[in-house]
């Protein structure tokens, strides 16, 4: 039986051979199906940009109820914990140097007095800037909490507020009361956002590895020539080599989606059909790139390095770790060439926002065009390098 110029009988034989070769090694089997799950679980937990329980050293020189209440206000939100108390000023620098604390708070003598008199009390905050993201967030949290504490404890503010401020919820203070509501992720957990991103990267890694190695291994062992002299047409060879990879990648997708939704309780608000379709286009991209890499590599080592040189920038430009819109403009344009970027965007929208094709069609279209183009180009090159 022939479909699209491909002989189905020969194709099935090749797919069977590929499957047998892949699954013969039970360790390979474990790597293919267990590794993505394991990675998702570990990295799902690791990839968190929330600031929680940041270690703080406190040097309280005031020793009043107010100063203790201020420390309590800082720890109450769960953002900071008091790691140690300083007995002298040098302790603060020492704790930051050793990394025992990333925030140091000094409450000077007379803090309570200034506050009660309606004057300007002051506190000093030292922050370890070596991890700049944590430092930025910690600084903002601490300043906010201290500012609010001051407004609630200052007699001046109470005076200004008068009686009109009672019973409105919020800060209860006059002035603008900002009420924030975060959609899609009300508790602002970074995990909800990052786990779908991990899924995208694992899928790309799998598709690349399997395709590249399926071809390069044969070349290295010299069996690719044997395949070439068999009656298989180049088209059949490529389809036969990539079809099992599509199958494995889809099974992996199902596995990690299950883990993401059941274990991490990531909401899947969109439809499975949208996810499947988008993923298929993405997998084809991965296959094409893998095939392309295998045409320029003669050994596994070469293939692996080339793959790495592609995968690393692809991962960084995808916006998985760092939002594309924060990158310098030049790099933002560069990300348009990265298939992972479109998939990351789409997968996040499918999971969190329940977006369908009505919203995501541009991403899916780009992925399909990219996948088709790369696969076509890779197939042509493959033809030439093996013929």
């Amino acid at each position, binding site marked *: 039986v022939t479909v699209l110029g491909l002989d189905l009988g020969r194709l099935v034989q090749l797919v069977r051979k590929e499957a047998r070769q892949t699954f013969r*090694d039970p360790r*390979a089997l474990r790597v293919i199906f267990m590794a993505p799950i394991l*990675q998702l679980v*570990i990295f799902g*937990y690791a990839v968190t*940009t929330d600031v*929680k*329980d*940041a*270690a703080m050293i406190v040097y309280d020189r005031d020793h009043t109820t107010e100063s203790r209440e201020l420390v309590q206000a800082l720890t109450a939100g769960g953002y900071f914990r008091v790691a140690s108390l300083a007995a002298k000023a040098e302790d603060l620098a020492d704790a930051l*140097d050793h*990394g025992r604390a990333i925030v140091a708070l000094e409450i000077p003598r007379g803090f309570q007095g200034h*506050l009660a008199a309606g004057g*300007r009390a*002051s*506190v000093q905050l*030292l922050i370890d*800037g*070596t*991890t*700049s993201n944590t430092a930025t967030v910690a*600084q*903002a949290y601490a300043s906010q909490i*201290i500012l609010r504490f001051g407004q609630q404890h200052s007699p*001046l503010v109470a005076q*200004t507020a008068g009686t*009109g401020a009672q019973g*409105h919820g*919020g800060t209860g203070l*006059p002035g*603008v*009361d*900002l009420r*924030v*509501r975060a*959609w*899609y*992720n009300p508790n602002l957990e*970074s995990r*909800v*956002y990052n786990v779908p991103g991990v899924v995208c990267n694992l899928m790309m*890694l799998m598709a690349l590895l399997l395709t590249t190695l399926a071809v390069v*291994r044969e070349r*290295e062992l010299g069996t690719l020539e044997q395949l070439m002299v068999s009656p298989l047409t180049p088209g059949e060879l490529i389809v036969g080599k990539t079809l099992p990879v599509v199958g494995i990648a889809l099974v992996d997708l199902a596995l990690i989606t299950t883990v993401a939704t059941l274990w991490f309780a990531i909401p899947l608000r969109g439809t499975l059909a949208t996810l499947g379709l988008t993923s298929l286009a993405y997998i084809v991209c991965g296959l094409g790139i893998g095939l392309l890499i295998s045409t320029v*590599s003669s050994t*596994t*080592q*070469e293939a*692996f390095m080339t793959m*790495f040189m592609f995968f690393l*920038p692809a991962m*960084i430009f995808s916006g998985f770790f*760092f*939002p594309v819109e*924060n*990158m310098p403009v030049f*790099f933002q344009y560069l990300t348009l060439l990265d298939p992972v970027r479109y998939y990351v965007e789409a997968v996040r929208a499918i999971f*969190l*926002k329940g977006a369908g094709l009505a*919203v995501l069609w541009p991403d899916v279209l780009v992925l399909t065009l990219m996948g088709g183009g790369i696969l076509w180009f890779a197939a042509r090159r493959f033809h030439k390098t093996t013929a």
Partner: protein
Amino acid sequence: MTARLSAGRLWAMARKEWLHIRRDSRSLAMAFAVPAAMVVLFGYVITFDVRDIRMAVLDQSNTTQSRDLVDAFRSSGYFRVARQLTSDDQISPLLVRGTVRLVLVIPPDFARHLAAAEPAPVQALLDGGDANTASIAINYAQAIVTSYSATAVLKGVPLPVPIAVDSRVWYNEDLKSSSMIVPGLMAAIMMILSALLTSLTIAREWERGTMEQLAATPVHRLEVILGKLLPYLGIGAVDIVLVAVVGGVVFAVPFRGSPALLMVTGMLFLVGAQGLGMFISASAKSQFLATQLAMIVTFLPAMLLSGLMFDISSMPKVLQVISLVVPARYFIAATRGIFLKGVGLEVLWGQALGMLVFALAGLGLAVHAFRKEIV
């Protein structure tokens, strides 16, 4: 098998390995071009600074006060007002499509509440998907609103700011992401490089059948391991210098500590990482498995569990414990200490000890995995 190590044989092994690397132009490129490219790429792209957040405004109050508030957002430099809305049902499509990240809703009675010195609620609707950007946006918005309230005249008296927070950032005064990333990147690059390159060297000998030949020669197994290690140690040393120079020249990352200490800890780390790579490759025996395992055991943990980008102290307890066996964690703490804090062994002895243990363990594992095969 001879019991004593011979410098001559060791040298011959190292030369053979170096020839392998030199002949493979891609390995060489990997060894030198990739680290430099990674530093530049990461340095530019990885930024936690959030600016120009796209927002939309639904101003139902439409008064001088409400327009002032919007202006305060606009002039802050953190927000860019991309849309002015006229009704509620325009909000949802904007957030779903990701056209804007934040929608500010100012209700009709805003100016009246302000005039009466009452809390005047305004609503901020955020795309919470990206929790990190969202929380930063919330902080900016809160700060803008607070300072607006302070200047807005309430019953003729401005709202006072009772506590002044004198906040100072140490070691990385401008909170530059590149200063955080570049020193850490050194560890990630070393780890990836050694794991990738070395994990293949032994698996390749197995697959090509040259391992038997190697076993038939009088080379001692420790000589094989050390001989394979030496060329990569050289490459690693050059890479350390390369990263430090690129970081300093391109991103002005300060270098405050001792270069000697950096070199010593770097070498310890490399020995451990390469020992681990060889252990993987000696036990996997196939290049496919070796690459897969190297990826899982070294690359991803070095990127994600090491504190390079994600703070270890914010992770769940279990992962914090697991991260104790991720060697990159110690090296990253050491490089940040040396680059940014300018501290020496008196602070970093714990990290140095951790890497010494790692180096010995890596070497031991590699030699052990070898013993079973070459008798």
